[in-house]
């Protein structure tokens, strides 16, 4: 299988301001990349169980569980990474703790360790993502691609900048080695961070800030994914009441003055909004990253909607 023609990276990190639909877009990307018999892993790290809600499933355990199948025998698996579980798994892998690991949990050591050092928590989460991305079985990669539903734009720089954060606390030892290997993957061409936004001021501003921050951190920025983009209507950019009235009459609809005025006002609000959207679109384009627009789903994000988004993404 190997790399996808339009999306060659192996680790796709999806961020975006809260409310922009980043979980839906991440899920659609995992679905799209799994088409044609591939296998992808969709990972969440914030304990929100957003993936389970999106696919209408019970909360995900700390295990890679199939959440969707795709054409040609492909599948999407999902994993909700829990930092405590990740720490125990990690300790077990390197130190064979066994029962002692459970004792650590009992005295609250795990909670303590992941709480006192937020950087440590992020190393564990990103470390697990790295492990899944690079895992192979019988000489073959287990996942063709991994999609990470990452923290929102405001926190993503800090989350991905694991070495910096841990270096403040940890000077030596395997955690340091681990964080360095995660940092190397995140800064390699195998990774792309995609930013989901809406054509609204605050999400666009946060997207621009995040792209600037990631660029400064030398973490590769992939695409800007504009979610819920509206179809282009009224290409002339203006509308007269006379035109509306003629259309209503031709369609046999009531065309009272109040009705026409109301429709004109709605059209005008749409045009105002579109002008603002156009200037925001320009700001995004100026960042020099490919911009992909995803359509507004009139019926909300259900499985069919996810498929629709996936198709748009794969074409881009």
């Amino acid at each position, binding site marked *: 299988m190997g790399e996808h023609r339009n999306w060659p990276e192996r680790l796709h990190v999806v961020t975006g301001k809260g409310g922009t639909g980043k979980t839906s877009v991440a899920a659609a990307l995992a679905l799209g990349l799994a088409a044609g018999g591939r296998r992808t892993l969709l990972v969440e790290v914030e304990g929100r169980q957003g993936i389970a809600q999106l696919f209408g499933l019970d909360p995900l355990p700390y295990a890679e569980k199939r959440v969707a199948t795709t054409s040609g025998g492909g599948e999407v698996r999902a994993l909700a990474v829990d930092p405590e579980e990740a720490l125990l798994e990690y300790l077990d892998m390197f*130190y064979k703790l066994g029962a002692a690991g459970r004792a650590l949990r009992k005295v609250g050591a795990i909670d303590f360790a992941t709480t*006192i050092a937020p950087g440590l928590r992020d190393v564990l989460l990103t470390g697990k993502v790295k492990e899944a991305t690079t895992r192979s079985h019988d000489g073959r990669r287990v996942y063709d691609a991994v999609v990470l539903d990452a923290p929102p734009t405001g926190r993503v720089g800090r989350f991905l900048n694991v070495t910096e*954060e841990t270096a403040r*606390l940890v000077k030596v*030892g395997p*955690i340091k080695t681990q964080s360095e290997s995660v940092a190397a993957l995140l800064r390699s061409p195998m990774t792309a961070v995609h930013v989901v936004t809406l054509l609204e001021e605050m999400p666009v501003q946060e997207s621009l800030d995040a792209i600037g921050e990631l660029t400064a951190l030398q973490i590769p920025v992939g695409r800007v994914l504009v979610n819920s983009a509206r179809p282009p209507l009224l290409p002339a950019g203006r509308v007269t009441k006379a035109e509306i009235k003629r259309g209503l009459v031709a369609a046999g609809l009531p065309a009272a003055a109040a009705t026409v005025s109301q*429709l004109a006002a709605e059209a005008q609000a749409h045009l105002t909004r579109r002008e603002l959207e156009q200037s925001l679109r320009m700001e995004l384009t100026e960042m020099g990253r490919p911009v992909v627009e995803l359509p507004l789903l009139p019926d909300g994000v259900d499985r069919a909607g996810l498929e629709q988004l996936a198709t748009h993404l794969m074409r881009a």
Partner: protein
Amino acid sequence: MSAPRLTVPSLNVDGLLADPAIRIVVCCGAGGVGKTTTAAALGLRAAEVHGRRTVVLTIDPARRLAQSMGLTELDNTPRQVKGIDAGQTGGELHAMMLDMKRTFDEVVEQHTTPKRAQEIFANPFYQAMSSTFAGTQEYMAMEKLGQLRAGDEWDLIVVDTPPSRSALDFLDAPARLSRFLDGRMLRMLLAPARSGGRSMFSLVTASFGLFSRAVQKILGAQLLTDLSGFVAALDSMFGGFRQRADQTYRILQDPQTAFLLIAAPERDAVREAAYFAERLVSERMPLAGLVVNRMHETALDGFSVAEAEEAIERLTAEGGHETAVDVLRIHASLVRQAQRETRVAAGFTEAFPTVPATSVAAQPADVHDVDGLRTIGALLA
């Protein structure tokens, strides 16, 4: 169809803002639902219409919104907002942005000696925790609220809660931090320090010895030295921390406080609001109501959306009237969106039929000046 209706008692925002017994309004909800804008609009209305001396505590406002209130820097001090129209009522509006680290530093300074404070500030664990600890922002927002309330300088304090991963963090974080500062792990770490501090892990239990060995191996010895220094320094402040957190928690339960849930008509935001409502009820916190922002609506009543959609098909098939077709498309998608949003909002109102609610119509452009805030305030009331 007309404006979207919420099938619950209507939230009386003006009654709330005018009530002298209400001293704190807490706006909470998921990220991206317009909490900061709502908080600012409520503050402005309280000052202009109800003549109250109001302060708005914001956590992380959008740059232009902050600028509109004259907040150009994060200086942790309330600044009076100029250019408001409160000449008739004599109200005042002040606003401040929370500086999490500075607030934490102030708490440390208040609870310990200057020398100890300097030691704490220099410790890498304190530096990490005061700027990045998940929950510090929530805890410090509560601390700042406690300080503002204790001064008794304000008629009304409007709080915009932090943009948490989950709105619930806001309630849980202070308890978590104080549990953490009072926890078993800390006491274990402190035990050797209390017994003379010759070797920090010499006197602890077997399982803890194992823990310390594992930590030494994984994280290195320097980290343990820093950690024990941090813990020893914090030890002197335990009581103070706990007391403050408990005090603020009690203020939040008091009838002088009103919680407003802020949501957008989206599934996730409404689900978050419902979780939050359950928590507020179980924690006996005064839940005043729900505000659903950015609801779409249409006042057109000449024909139904189905008739509009039929007309679009017919006119498209016949050709011509392109502009009218697009206008009808805009209208139909607006109605469909309004219907969908009303259904989503009903997910909350059906589960909490006694919680009053109000909705704010979506604005064509984003709000970033006092006039825009005034408009939102009027729509809220």
